[in-house]
């Protein structure tokens, strides 16, 4: 059986000198990127198809991955965006009534380099202690020294414009099942499909536009609001996008999610910084500072907004109960509302879905 017999060997090497062996569960090849760990116990299909992971090699901490196969219905985009995938044990037998294919077959279909049989806990502890690490994943037979050397030569994630790579190239408009109460533009920096689904559920007509879309073009369309989506990479290197966002500020309600939140903060003059190893998981507690309630949220980011650098008029709406980092912003005057976490979940709990309602309120001229 496929699960039992050792597949092709695969080796993983990190810039700190860590070298681990496992077996390939995907296609042969060599990929590189920033290693991050994700602690979600379910939802690997959503993780694989989340464009925010572009440029990263994702290490799942859950012990067994692939149990439910691939449904295709749960995908967050049309393809796999992450650079590589690492797990303790990847199962080739799927058991779920919705499963269309097995995870290893999907890897082969999508051309994903994936490693199984890796000591993911060791890897997680290294990343926790040393921060996100650059590394390489390869099925080639190369010496450890060579691989570590190669890992050290990988350009930083900030040097690549991943947004451009994952953003859609053409605009599209989707309509809710009933009459649309509002029309909104979703700027796609690597948007997850669930954001669209949540907006449609609220009766919002959504036009998804490419990341390079100019503020002027968006305003010409006279939407009721604009959503700045999640996406991959370092917000500090996206100055072009930030300046376009500046052109939207104050003109209509703006709603940012994850990267979109970071970009909005930069647009109003705040700084962003890199977290030691980021937040990647579905169990992150966030305090709603306005109600005092705790939301369990889905998170996936390596950068955060420096709360110290916020301009006046900013209300800090949410904060992480793990590291007290800023998780949400509201500017009453300029009608900006943004969150660092993922209200659309997928994977993850639905606690924060009401945030979409806040956007709806702003479009209705009310406070979020």
């Amino acid at each position: 059986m496929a699960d039992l017999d050792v597949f092709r060997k695969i080796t993983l090497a990190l810039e700190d000198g860590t070298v681990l062996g496992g077996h390939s569960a995907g296609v042969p090849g060599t990929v590189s990127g920033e290693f991050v760990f994700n602690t979600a116990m379910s939802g690997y299909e959503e993780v694989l198809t989340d464009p925010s992971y572009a440029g990263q090699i994702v290490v799942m901490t859950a012990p067994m991955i692939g149990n439910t196969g691939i449904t295709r219905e749960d995908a967050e985009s049309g393809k796999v965006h992450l650079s590589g995938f690492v797990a303790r044990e990847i199962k080739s037998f799927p058991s779920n009534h919705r499963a269309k294919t097995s995870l290893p077959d999907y890897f082969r279909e999508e051309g994903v380099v994936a490693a199984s049989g890796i000591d993911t806990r060791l890897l997680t502890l290294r990343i926790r202690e040393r921060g996100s690490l650059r590394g390489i994943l390869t099925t080639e037979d190369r010496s450890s020294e060579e691989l570590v050397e190669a890992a050290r030569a990988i350009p930083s994630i900030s040097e690549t414009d991943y947004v451009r790579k994952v953003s859609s190239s053409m605009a599209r408009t989707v309509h809710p099942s009933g009459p649309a109460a509002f029309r909104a533009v979703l700027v796609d920096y690597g948007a997850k499909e669930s954001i669209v689904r949540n907006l449609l559920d609220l009766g919002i007509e959504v036009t998804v536009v490419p990341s390079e879309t100019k503020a002027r073009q968006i305003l010409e369309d006279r939407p009721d609001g604009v959503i700045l989506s999640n996406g991959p990479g370092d917000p500090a290197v996206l100055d072009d996008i930030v300046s376009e966002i500046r052109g939207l500020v104050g003109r209509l309600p703006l709603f940012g999610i994850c990267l979109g939140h970071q970009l909005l903060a930069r647009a109003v003059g705040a700084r962003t910084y890199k977290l030691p190893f980021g937040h990647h998981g579905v169990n992150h507690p966030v305090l709603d500072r306005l109600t005092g309630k705790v939301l369990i949220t889905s998170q996936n980011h390596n950068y955060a907004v420096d709360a110290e650098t916020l301009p006046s008029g900013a209300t800090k709406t949410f904060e992480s109960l793990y590291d007290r980092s800023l998780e949400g912003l509201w500017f009453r005057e300029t009608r900006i509302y943004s969150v660092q976490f993922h209200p659309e979940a997928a994977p993850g709990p639905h606690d924060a879905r009401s945030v979409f309602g806040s956007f709806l309120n702003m479009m209705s001229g009310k406070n979020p």
Partner: protein
Amino acid sequence: MPRREDLHHILIVGSGPIVIGQAGEFDYSGTQALKVLKEEGYRVSLVNSNPATIMTDPDLSDSIYMVPLTVEKVAEVLRRERPDAILPTMGGQTALNLAVALSKEGILEAMGIELLGSSIETIEMAEDRGKFKEAMARIGLSVPKSFIVKSLAEAQEALASLSFPVLIRPSFTLGGTGQSVVYNRDEFSRAVLFGIEQSPIGEILVEESLLGWKEFELEVVRDAKDNAIIVCSIENVDPMGVHTGDSITVAPAMTLTDREYQTLRDAAIAILREVGVETGGSNVQFAVNPADGRFVVIEMNPRVSRSSALASKATGFPIARVATRVAIGYTLDEIDNEITGNTPASFEPSLDYVVVKIPRFHFEKFPQSDRVLGPQMQSVGEAMGIGHNFREALLKALRSLENGTDHLMPELLPDDPEEIGRILKISSDRRIHQIGEALRRGIPEETVAIWTGYDRWFLREIGEIIELERKVSAFMGEPLALFPDDLLRRIKENGFSDRCLSRLLGVKEQEFREMRLRRGVEARFRTVDTCAGEFAARTPYLYGTYQGAPEWRKEKKGKESVLILGSGPNRIGQGVEFDYCCVHGVMALRELGYEAVMMNCNPETVSTDFNVSNRLFFEPLTLEDVLAVVDREQPRGVVVQFGGQTPLKLMKSLHDAGVPILGTSCEMTDLAENRERFRGLIDRLGLLQPRSGLVSDLDDGMEEIRRIGFPVLVRPSYVLGGEAMEILYDEKDWNEYKKRIATIDFRFPLLIDSFFSDATEVDVDAIGDGREIAIGGILEHIEQAGIHSGDSACFIPPKTLSMQVQNEIVRQTKILGEALEVTGLMNIQFAVQNETVYLLEVNPRASRTVPFTSKAIGFSLPKAAMRLMMGESLSSLGLSGRKIPVLPYTSVKEAVFPFRRFKGVDTLLSPEMKSTGEVMGISRDFGGAFRDAQIASGMDLPVSGTVFVSVSDRDKEEAVRVSRDLVALGFDLVATAGTAGRLEKEGIRTLKVNKVKEGRPHIVDLIKDGQVQLVINTVSGKQAQKDSLSIRQETLLRNIPYYTTIEGAKALVIALQTKGTPDSLRSLQELHRSILLPEKA
């Protein structure tokens, strides 16, 4: 929100005795709750009747009342203590039901006492099937189609819109009591009537059966700000139809997509909101149709449960502690995650390992039971395995069960696949092994999936184990040196035990282990940290695995450590009593400044709370696993005398492997256990023992018995809880015994003792320092020798033993203990016949009575024992030459039995232990203490009505006195001819009734008709036992108090004669303060 300042005094309700469906997990939750409330500075009171619990330790609360958990008694406690609030969510269904009853009677309202954690409305909405159904409809969730009925007629009406099989579920019962799946009209009527009888409100649910659907449980905690978290998801490997307590379960859920899981999560939280659990933990159960993912809500428990104990151990998230904090006003974000220390409890644990729980059954004890698993829980305990993958966790849990399994064992299955199918379609305690065997035979996984309803994913995992087995077996007979390295690593990573592997390869386990160690394939230890490594854990809660790099290493400069081996899964004969001893050992070690290291595999215990010891290894208690821990831990010594038979069995092998054993030496323990060597010692000391012999071949049995003389007591050596122990009266009995024992797993030699009738049995608990012995207490048994001491009621101090006999018992205990150089605990059983003391058994280790004795005398024997093992002496503890303290009160221990769980089982007591738990009654006089113990054990003692008396010939004399007293108390008597004749002759008015075989109307008709309120029925001889079986079964079914020994009946009469005085209620602490400490000799 911070802690509530308006409360000052909180009372916790315990769960009473250990019964099936309600076991040590509530000691775990109750103990956590007590500790939290004390930490928070509240005055805390406790009511519980179970002495074998940590929660009833006098230093955990301000006042403990060891009283029956009845409305009347608890109301008395409330009137005396006047707490501001009651926390009823920690003591299982018992505590919840009691809270409802106290509220319904207006007692809580009258005294202005608030309920914490759950309101009455909430409890009722969750427990009342009708209200729950309506609540689910309000939030748009489906429940199985069902009808609430209160009579057979209504039930039959309901049946019209359902199709068989259907499920019968009584309202307000625990552990699925009275639940059954029925397949036809005949079974239906019986199940309906039984269910109505079992429900305290006479109501049942007739429900559509979801046989074969997948079953999931979510553990939810919610606070006053409406923050809710899911601590853990648990998937049942056994599909719907088997009670979750009897199912193999796995955490986290393995076969749900995120979308499906989030749907269940949303539903679980919505249910808590609708039912109104505002501050506390709950368990919500779902059934999912594997064909289309449709789900229905099965039930929810608005309290901590067995599953929450499991979830706590599986994740490291202490649900009971957090639920208690939430109940007193904190919100989740204000509570620390104690494992990481710097993140809040308002998060959801993430697991990077797999946990499998397997129930422990004890059907061997109840040979008449059919071993078929269903909606009514029958397991007596459970073991949990933690591994890097499902296979490792499953195999670790299997070898933790302490029932001879170390793997998926070979099973006897027929050759015909169709017959195999018939067997596999029925869920039984052997099913997991049968599945393994079927796959071994080459039956396709999809076929097995259809037969068993197991998800294909699990069968694929089991299939992988079987495939690996084949790879290993290919090397059978080859030199071990040729066994490939990569295969060795792979099988160990898949959880195979050395014992199983050595069997597959036909080598000795030790040879295999040596080969493995030579190749550097060793277990490494990893942390259960609640967060999959995202944050550093400061609490060393560890499990062993073979994959990956070692994570935990002992600090070189750390304190000296001591390893205590726990007692494994609860089963009959080995329950929480031993966990109590382990925990006290840990406490003593910590007081002494050692690092106390605990090793155990039972999630239902206090000892496996990561807060209790300095380090916890959650591992199977097999030689392989213990040696692996010892190797990494390098403790100063290992304690094997606290955990009962489980660690004791390992003592010799550990000693041989060079592991230092603390306490009484291996040599001396062997001397006490080895019959022949022990007899030599007894002779040398000039002590008396009943005549006895050994048999190593069943064919030699009769000859040896003739030498000793009937009646004899027979049992195999090294069997726990007196399993397969019987009294034989004649040769026919012996022949039947031979047949029966051939079917069970036992070890020769067979021990044969002359059986003493009319003797009083006595237990002594003592401690020694290797030179000297101090007596803890002398316990007099109520039932005569011949009934297992664990099943017998006993009391302290003794009542009928003369001072001379007591002194002789003390003398014998001391010379024996000194001769065995007992260091730590010891227990001796004596029989006293006509003022002569006979020695029955010596055990240089913890006994089942240690917690009871410790509570009765106000002194922790195991703590002192631990100190003695670490080198302190009795004189340094101030115990040298101490006389037994004078107790101004009597403590009675009564056993609690699981008979109602097993259809067709006889309730007669025998030398084979059958009880699952115990209760304690304390009062100034024996009568009051015995009465409380009886009521606490579940007997509903009548104050008037009719008593049925039917006794064996040798009890007739005593029966006359008992009957006379009963008449004087105002009872009417009915009796069968023999007994009636005798009573009439003595001038006692008795109504004669037919025996069952004498024609109708007979005694069973009378009982069925509700005309009998109390039964005294003693029998001798197998025939008489058979004849009277239907009487005992009917009595059991109707919950009529029954006594099967004349001694029990005598004690009952004393209890009925004793009138309680309301002002006599005292807390355990007050009672302990009243003990007169004797002068030193």
